[in-house]
Structures are given as C-alpha cells and as structure tokens.
C-alpha cells in the first residue's frame, strides 16, 4: 500500500519535472485506481468512462497543486469526489428538469380535459402522430421512466440532441392541446 502510494508520488514528481512517460504511466495507474471507485457509485459503464475522462482532465489542470511531498491518493480522491459530486448534482438536476416538463404537460392535459374534452387516449394518439424519433423519446422518458441520458444511450443519440428533440415534441403537443 505504502509502496504503491510512494510510486504514485514518485511518478507525479517525475511528471512535474517534464517526464511524459512517467506522466502517462501515472494517469494509467490513476485511471485503474479510480475506475472501481466510480463504478461502485454510478450505474452505467459509459457514465464511468465519461466521468473518468473528466477527472483525468481535472488532474491535468490541477497538477501544480501537488508537490510530491504528501500522499498522492488523498489528493487524487479529493478531485475525483469533487467531480463525482458535480456529475451527480447535474444528473439529479436533469431528473428534476424532466419531472418539471412532465408536470407541465400533465397540467395542460388536465386543463384541456375539462375545457376541451381531450382525453389521455387522445394525447397518446397525438404522441404517436409525432415524428417517430420524438414519439420514441417521449414514450421512453414518460411512460418507461428513462432519463435523457439513458434514452440517448438506448437510441444512439447524444444527450443534448435527446433533450432538444423532447422540447420540440413538448412544444408541438402544447400547440395541439391549445387548439
């Protein structure tokens, strides 16, 4: 354990002195060290990979704050935990955001049911009339409870594209409900 820690510290010292091979080795070892830590806390392998990349970039940016005179692991775990918290915060914010979107749709839906007699069935019908991709996204997100990120993985799009498509779909649905 101590030998391993000493090895990290030595590699970092060499890296700070400009040794690119040592730096590459250090980043490889760090990535091996952090992968199980992240895998334990995140559900998807792709999430682990994304976050690991972010952490490696953060280590690169913050490497001047490590002098090689104190243990390496607490330093690297502090960065990893910080980025993990950021990631989880964004993830939950995303969940809340979509929950808001859904409740907005539901509110509109209820108003319209009383005012213009549009039923849940007709809403489902309207969803089916949307372009195929938008309809699939709404079904996955609101009937099956997937997050935007999970939908993105499932249908092979990127997360922002899924969000954009979902927003467009909400807009179309709102317009149709208002008529």
């Amino acid at each position, binding site marked *: 354990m101590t030998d391993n820690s000493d090895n990290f510290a030595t590699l970092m010292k060499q890296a700070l002195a*400009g*040794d690119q091979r040592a730096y590459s080795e250090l980043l490889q070892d760090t990535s091996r060290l952090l992968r199980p830590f992240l895998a334990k806390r995140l559900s998807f392998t792709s999430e682990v990979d994304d976050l690991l990349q972010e952490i*490696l*970039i953060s280590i690169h940016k913050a490497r001047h*704050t490590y*002098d090689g005179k104190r243990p390496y692991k607490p*330093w690297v*775990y502090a*960065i990893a935990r910080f980025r993990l918290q950021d990631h989880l915060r964004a993830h939950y914010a995303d969940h809340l955001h979509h929950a808001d979107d859904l409740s907005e749709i539901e509110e509109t839906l209820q108003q319209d049911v009383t005012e213009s007699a549009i039923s849940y069935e007709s809403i489902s019908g309207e969803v089916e009339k949307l372009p195929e991709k938008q309809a699939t996204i709404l079904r996955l997100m609101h009937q099956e409870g997937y997050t935007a990120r999970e939908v993105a993985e499932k249908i092979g799009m990127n997360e922002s594209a899924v969000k954009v498509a979902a927003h467009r779909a909400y807009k179309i649905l709102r317009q149709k409900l208002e008529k």
Partner: protein
Amino acid sequence: MANIDELINKLARDGTVIKPAHHPVLLSLEWIAAAVFYLAVALMISGLRTDLMVKLHEPWFVVEIATLVGIIAATSLSAALLSFPDLHQMRRVALAPAIAFALFALVMLFAWRADNPPSQPPIHSVECTLSITMLAILPAVWIFFVMRKFASTHHYWSGGIAMLAAFSVGALWLRLYEQTDSIMHVIEWHYLPMILIGLLGMWLGKVLLKW
C-alpha cells in the same frame, strides 16, 4: 476505454515542466504581508485615530485588535488551504477561522460588558459598513484572483473565507482610524455585516472559483 487511452496520451504529450504551487503557509504569509502593506498605506492616507495611544492602554481594545489580527491570519491560512483540492491534507487547520471567530465573539461580549455606562454611539451608522466594504474590495479581488489559479474543491467555503479575510482587513483599518468608543456601534456596523459578506463570498466562490 480506447477514448481514455487516447486522452491519456494527449495529456501526457502536454506534460511539460510544471512548477508546483507554493505551500499554503507561504501563500497565506504572502497574503498577510500584502494586507499589512495595504493597511499601512490606507492608514497613511486616512490617518490614525487621534486617541490611539490612550486606547492602547485599554485591555479590551488591545485584545479586540489582537483577535482581529488573528482572524486575518486564520482566514488567510484557511483560504490558502481551501485553494488546494485536498486542503493540502491539513483539514483541521482549515477550520482555524471558526476558533478565531468564536474567540472574537467572546472578546466582543466582554468588551460590551466593560462598556458601562455605554459610550455614546456616533451619528453615522451604515457609512462604516460601506467604508469597510470599499476598503476590502482590493484585497478581495486580489485573493480571488490568486485562488482562481489553484483548484479549489470547496467553492462555497473558499469564497466565504476569502471575503471574510478581505473584510477583516477593512474592519481593522476602520477600528484604527475611526474614533468611537461605542462597542454596540462597532458590533452592529463593523462586525455583524461580516455575516452578509461571508454569504456574498460563498456565492462569489461558486461563480468565480470554477475550474
């Protein structure tokens, strides 16, 4: 996995010689030295309170000034530690401002009890808070500027403590410049606004210390 290997290769290629950051103790000493210089210049411009020599014979005034200096030292050290992702593995030392502020509150309590009968408060009020804030702007900008070069993983605390360090410099300046004996005035308009300043600092930390 392939992406990670690719990224590591790219980062390793960027791995040039890097000078490690100063030790946080040294960093805080630099900030304290800058604060002393700034305070000296401010006092040279504004002048010292005319009754300073008399006040220096009053134990509670001396203890108040000494504790305020302690707050500047503790907040500077804590802000320097908070600039490092792992607090330079001196987590307990980073809590030093809590002790300094607790001590300061105690000193103010005793000073308030000793101010009997209470001294007449000055006519002005919020002007003191504004003067302290104005004087604290430059140290605050300086500390945030330096902290941004580091990698804080505690944005809120870093920002709050940095602002308190800067505001304490302003508070010390006003205590050595303004001729007032009213402890109530000093507590109300010099020191209590520190709470708001700390909160403002937390927000600034969140905005300015991202990396």
